[in-house]
């Protein structure tokens, strides 16, 4: 009996130490050659606090996947035109008839004689991705992207957006960022950045569409847009575009200067292999050193060798950053001196490395919690929880005298195990999570009250202490199992069905109740047994 008891006590101490380590980790333990962390810091590293408690930025974004579908069908339109031209099959137009349905492509104006040939061309080349409809009797065919292909494309777009955002956010150096599918609605992404409170900076970083491009210059600089338009006889040709310059350009032109450029870029975003910020040693100007991919290098060499002594424009974010004269053919590396700001130069290399977003984003929700406000919430929540627990503990001592110590020890161990669980599992503690802790405390106290009341009842019925304790635990155990399993069942469902706050509640509640089954029943019983062993014969227990 006694040996058995000692083993059980050893087990409980082992559990206590294990979960205390779960809360604190070992980084605070002094060790030769390692500087120990302060205990408070060690605990903070283990117990992850939610954004509502520690401060940070929380965003929910929606990816406009229809844009990615649109880009895909745009390409298809081009390919169909090409294929029909190559096969010498006449048509009046290939287009997308309905802007709200980016997945539909229509071919029109096919002569009845060619209908069969066009249909078989479309079937051969596009039926893997599209449902082809129409017999050509009215000269038209409709291609609709297959739903499975469309949803795969949409899914891929969301994943790509997540990757891109993750890469961009990584440049902020945030620890433990969350970037994931949100799960409540379709195509939604959740971004959580602890410790960041500059929302606008985060937004501009995530949404930055600035891309570096090099265009051929057709004309300019002009004084203003009217002058630029006048130079081409009043209207800009469809393959050209009008862009403003930016201040401090090396050529001395100012922000209002207007250039006419070829619309299609010579090299653009994905052609760059790298771009690194630098400074010109002579002038002190900020520079960007770039290298191109092999293919783009060949293309660029081809272009520059054919266009010696013409100008090209470096464009970023819709503005001409620099205009340079082509003196020699350039293959795959170069240096741009220009009117970049410090931030532009710095972000350029990051953006080039991370690539572009596959579709634009829409913000559905953004929340910022300032770090000091979060700290206030923690202080208040913790004060309230501690006061609550102390009041409960004091009451148990008064009401149940000696047995109150059992209840208080059990309650204390319960909280240690719960927090240790949080430390081991890496789960996040949020305000709703604290609600789960409170329900846990309530049910922990309840288990003890149930047991003690039952022991009193049995003792009143004339049972000896040992028998009363045995019966009390036996009867209360049935009730405790029922209440705990019911609540764990509902918490498990909340965990599966819920998200965010509901989930945080479910996690702490489940952990807490599991711990409570151990502490209120096993630990409390053990203390009674130990106490019984020391009672003199005939002495009543203190309850």
């Amino acid at each position, binding site marked *: 009996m006694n040996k058995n008891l000692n083993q059980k006590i050893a087990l409980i101490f082992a559990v206590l130490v294990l979960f205390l380590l779960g809360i604190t980790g070992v980084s605070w333990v002094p060790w030769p050659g390692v500087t120990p962390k302060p205990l408070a810091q060690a605990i903070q590293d283990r117990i992850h606090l939610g954004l509502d408690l520690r401060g940070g930025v929380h965003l929910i974004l929606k990816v406009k996947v229809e844009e990615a579908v649109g880009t895909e069908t745009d390409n298809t339109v081009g390919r169909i035109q090409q294929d029909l031209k190559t096969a010498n099959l006449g048509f009046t137009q290939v287009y997308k008839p309905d802007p709200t349905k980016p997945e539909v492509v229509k071919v029109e104006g096919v002569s009845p004689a060619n209908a069969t040939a066009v249909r078989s061309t479309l079937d051969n080349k596009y039926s893997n991705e599209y449902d082809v409809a129409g017999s050509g009797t009215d000269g038209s065919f409709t291609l609709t992207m297959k739903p499975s292909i469309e949803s795969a494309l949409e899914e891929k777009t969301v994943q790509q957006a997540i990757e891109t955002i993750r890469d961009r956010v990584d440049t902020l150096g945030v620890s433990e960022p969350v970037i994931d599918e949100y799960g409540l609605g379709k195509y939604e992404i959740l971004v959580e950045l602890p410790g960041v*409170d500059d929302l606008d900076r985060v937004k501009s970083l995530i949404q930055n569409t600035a891309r570096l491009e090099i265009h051929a210059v057709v004309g300019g600089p002009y004084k203003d847009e009217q002058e630029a338009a006048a130079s081409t006889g009043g209207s800009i040709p469809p393959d050209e575009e009008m862009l403003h310059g930016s201040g401090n350009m090396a050529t001395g032109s100012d922000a209002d200067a207007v250039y006419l450029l070829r619309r299609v870029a010579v090299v653009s975003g994905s052609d760059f292999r790298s771009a690194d910020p630098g400074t010109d040693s002579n002038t002190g100007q900020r520079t960007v050193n770039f290298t191109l991919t092999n293919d783009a290098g060949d293309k660029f060499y081809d272009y520059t060798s054919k266009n010696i002594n013409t100008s090209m424009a470096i464009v970023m974010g819709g503005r001409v950053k620099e205009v340079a004269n082509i003196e020699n053919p350039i293959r795959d590396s170069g240096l741009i001196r220009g009117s970049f700001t410090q931030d532009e130069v710095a972000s350029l290399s990051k953006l080039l490395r991370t690539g572009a977003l596959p579709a634009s984003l829409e*913000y*559905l929700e953004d*929340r910022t919690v*300032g770090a000091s406000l979060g700290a*206030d919430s923690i202080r208040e929540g913790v004060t309230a929880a501690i006061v609550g627990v102390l009041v409960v503990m004091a009451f148990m001592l008064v009401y149940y*005298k000696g047995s109150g110590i059992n209840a208080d020890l059990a309650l204390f161990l319960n909280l240690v195990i719960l927090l240790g669980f949080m430390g081991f599992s890496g789960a996040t503690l949020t305000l709703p999570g604290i*609600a789960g802790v409170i329900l846990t405390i309530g049910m922990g106290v309840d288990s003890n009250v149930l047991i003690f009341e039952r022991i009193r009842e049995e003792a009143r019925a004339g049972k000896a202490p040992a028998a009363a304790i045995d019966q009390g635990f036996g009867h209360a155990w049935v009730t405790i199992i029922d209440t705990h399993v019911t609540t764990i069942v509902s918490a498990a*469902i909340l965990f599966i069905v819920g998200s965010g706050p509901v989930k945080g*509640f479910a996690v702490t509640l489940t952990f807490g109740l599991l711990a409570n089954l151990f502490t209120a029943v096993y630990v409390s019983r053990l203390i009674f047994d130990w106490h019984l062993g020391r009672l003199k014969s005939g002495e009543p227990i203190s309850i």
Partner: protein
Amino acid sequence: MELFRGVNIDWLRLKWAFLGFSLLFSVAGVIKMSVLWSTTGSPVPLGVDFRGGTEVQVQFQQAPDIDAIRKAMDAAGIRDAKIQPYNTTAGTNQVLISLPEELNEGALDTGRQQVVSALHAHYSNTFTDSGVKVDVVGPTVGKQLEKQAGRAILVSLLGMLIYLWFRFQLIYGVAAVVAVFHDTLITVGFFALTGQEISLTVIAAILTLVGYSMNDTIVVFDRIRENLRVSRRESLPDVVNRSINQTLSRTVLTSGLTFLTVLSLYIFGGQVLRGFSFALVVGILIGTYSSIAVAAPMLVAWQQWRASKGKAVVLPAAKRPRA
């Protein structure tokens, strides 16, 4: 120390009083909710989490002048901002500025930028960015959350019903779920009656209340089941009364202690936890009441109804507990 030793109250005689009390509060809540529904389109005042909108909470270093802030907002062209002091035990110089909901997310963000830049323009020396909390919630997300929170609660109730069906009998599960539903209805009704907003943390509180009330009901049911097994000749009303009385000191103790914990949250927990702890203060009182006044009498009522239909009177505890 001991309370309620050997009490012998005939709880079931009070059933009409209980029914009246429950009806009074449920009906009052429901009426208020339908009035709110017809006037505002929502049965309870919803917090920014569900309704959508923009809220900016600022911690100033000195006591803020609400009128001056209002003027600053007006000057910045923000007309319909609601500006109110928002005090907590940790910081007394807080102000909450809220803008009404907008149909599109872009407009909400513009509102946030206007408020923040107006504050910066006028008060840049009296607050820091780490003392600002901003919530911008678009209407889409609010709707999604609302649906999901409701669904999560319903599904978890169903889960409890099935477990109780398996452990006790169907009627026990039904009675417990009805009692919990009664508690939720009355608590939400209190929010409607007092005009407090339901936010995400209030939802967490309602989940807590569901768990708590269920726990309370099961304790009583467990005792009824046990007593039915031991004394088969006693009538069901007598067994129910005796079981409630036997568990009464436990019920009062646990409720009292949990109530103390929640009260400490309400007092020390600050504004963030105010709605949360309010829901629990109400919920614990109602949850304790409903175990005695709703769930247990339902068992008796069910049995009497079966008897009046001439069906076999099955005592709802024929099964032996397995644990």
